[in-house]
């Protein structure tokens, strides 16, 4: 195993906004790395800097052994980049898009048609490839976008929030596609706001906040170290919150977090199953009515709280659907990311 991406101290400023403040990154060849963080954390800028679309103000990085500044041409040859917006031409059909981009990759016309056929088969685009892409659903457009970025058989694909805005089914399809690519030896760098997604796909999770990596590890490592298990109770009314808080803290021996908005009380626990039985018994004993009671995995918000001591300003969305998160987690550096 050799390092495919090696970045040290990357800094990028847009005007007064610092999008990257010293990012270090180490990605092994043939693995999936997930950059996890809220909007404005610097994920998009990280991908664009590594993809040679913007030059860093300080720091160095190599991709496949090539310097991203001095050898950007060689880096681009290795790289398939899929940005936050599926960048396909809305007024062309799927097939026309594939053939156009293949030709711009210097395929001759006939070879471009052949390559388009291969990708249409592989991504199962046959059902809609002859329609104008402006009529596509978000999931179809993403699949086409991914097909486009694989035209020149890149060694590394960088996917910026590939599943944002997709319905669950399209998301699972995309995950399977990414699995397949990794199975064939492609190195994948993806950004996501969803812990669940990073958990499912990434060999290595890099938690990003304020333009830096604040924690790196496998999903299991991070969970054991910072995230852990949570026991959550949703009260039937606000009046019982103090009693529940006291009860949970006594049983778990850790500090509870109370959210009056959601009427929820959460404590980190180590042996959830045993404690859950005890919590249930005592809730009955003290006659406290609750709406929900259970163990849950940590959310992105928990990771952030554990790592930084501050919230992402996001409403925790239990369904894993991050629209609320995406909408409310914007910070002042968002503008910088979009530049």
């Amino acid at each position, binding site marked *: 195993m050799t390092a495919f991406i090696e970045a040290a101290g990357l800094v990028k400023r847009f005007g007064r906004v610092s999008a990257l403040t010293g990012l270090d990154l180490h990605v092994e060849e043939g693995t999936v790395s997930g950059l996890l963080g809220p909007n404005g954390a610097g994920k998009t800028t990280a991908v664009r800097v590594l*993809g040679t679309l913007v030059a860093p103000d300080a720091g160095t990085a190599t991709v496949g052994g090539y310097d991203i500044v001095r050898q950007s*041409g060689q880096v681009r040859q290795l790289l398939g980049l899929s940005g936050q917006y599926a960048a396909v031409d809305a007024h*062309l059909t799927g097939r026309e898009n594939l053939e156009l*981009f293949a*030709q*711009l*990759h*210097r395929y001759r016309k006939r*070879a471009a048609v052949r390559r388009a056929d291969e990708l249409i088969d592989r991504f199962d685009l046959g059902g809609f490839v002859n329609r104008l892409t402006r009529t596509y659903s978000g999931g179809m457009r993403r699949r086409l976008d991914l097909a486009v970025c694989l035209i020149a058989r890149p060694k590394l694909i960088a996917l910026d929030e590939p599943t944002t805005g997709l319905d669950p089914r399209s998301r699972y399809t995309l995950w399977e596609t990414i699995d397949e690519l990794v199975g064939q030896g492609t190195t994948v760098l993806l950004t996501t706001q969803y812990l669940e997604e990073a958990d499912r796909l990434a060999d290595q999770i890099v938690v990003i906040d304020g333009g830096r990596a604040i924690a790196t590890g496998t999903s299991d490592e991070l969970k054991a170290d910072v995230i852990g298990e949570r026991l959550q109770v949703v009260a039937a009314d606000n009046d019982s919150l103090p009693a529940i808080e006291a009860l949970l803290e006594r049983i778990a021996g850790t500090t509870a977090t109370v959210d009056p908005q959601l009427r929820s009380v959460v404590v980190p626990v180590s042996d959830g199953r045993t404690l859950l039985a005890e919590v249930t018994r005592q809730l009955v004993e003290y006659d406290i009515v609750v709406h929900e009671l259970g163990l849950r995995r940590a959310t992105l918000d928990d990771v952030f709280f554990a790592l930084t001591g501050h919230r992402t300003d996001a409403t925790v969305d239990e369904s894993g659907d991050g629209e609320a998160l995406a909408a409310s987690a914007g910070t002042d550096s968002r503008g910088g990311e979009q530049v």
Partner: protein
Amino acid sequence: MTTAEVTNSVGARLAWMVRDYVLLARRYMLHARRLPAQLFFTMLQPLLFVVLFAYVFGEAIPLPGGADYTQYVMVGIFLQTIAFAGMTTGAGLADELGRGMVDRFRSLPMAPSAPLVGRAVSDVARNAFTIGLMILIGLAVGWRISSSPLPAIGGFLLLLLCSFVLSWCGMLVGLLVGNTQGAVSAGIGVVFPLVWLSNAFVPLTGMSTGMRAIASWNPVSSFNVAIRELLGNPNPVGADPALPMRYPIAASLLWILAVLIVSSWGAMRAYRRRTS
């Protein structure tokens, strides 16, 4: 690998560059076909102008020697139409910047200038089509080409050269403004003074001395006079005309060269800045 091997000879690089231009130009031409409503309204506007000027203003604006205003004004309308088309191109480019398309282009091994050159080239093709239709409308309202075929062809070629330059100006404006809505407004703000402060619709002979000096040195006036001369349309520039009005074809070519150099350099520079 089915990709052609990357060669570094100047000839090969030039060939790839031209191919990138052609691919992108074809892409924009396909857009025009896929957006028939947009094409229809781009056609509607010059049609309205022809009818308005021929029938409303025509009687009110006297030409020296009693020449027919319709014969005079058509070339002005041609130029205004292609100027607006150039600004529309700028708005289209600004739109594309916001959609991640430019990032994709930049990550390809293609000529960085291809999206801009492709647009300018496809504009020329689209404008050739528009001008063709306008010629028919003009003929229907009584306008005539009164020169022999060779100069007439020269006149239309000059018009297409203007189209190429004006597309670059439009792209420069679009890139400086950076968003679609702003680019549309800015485009209108550029085209109206540029075209109306020339002899496109009112002859120099009808202007005050100061106005006439401004209009005479406006590149659009040179284009107007040169094309009218080549098409054999009435072309009053008054007694003792300014230098560009005396040598309109040479002046037009010099203006085109100068504006092309400045606007393409500026547009490429703004494009690189916008995308890095």
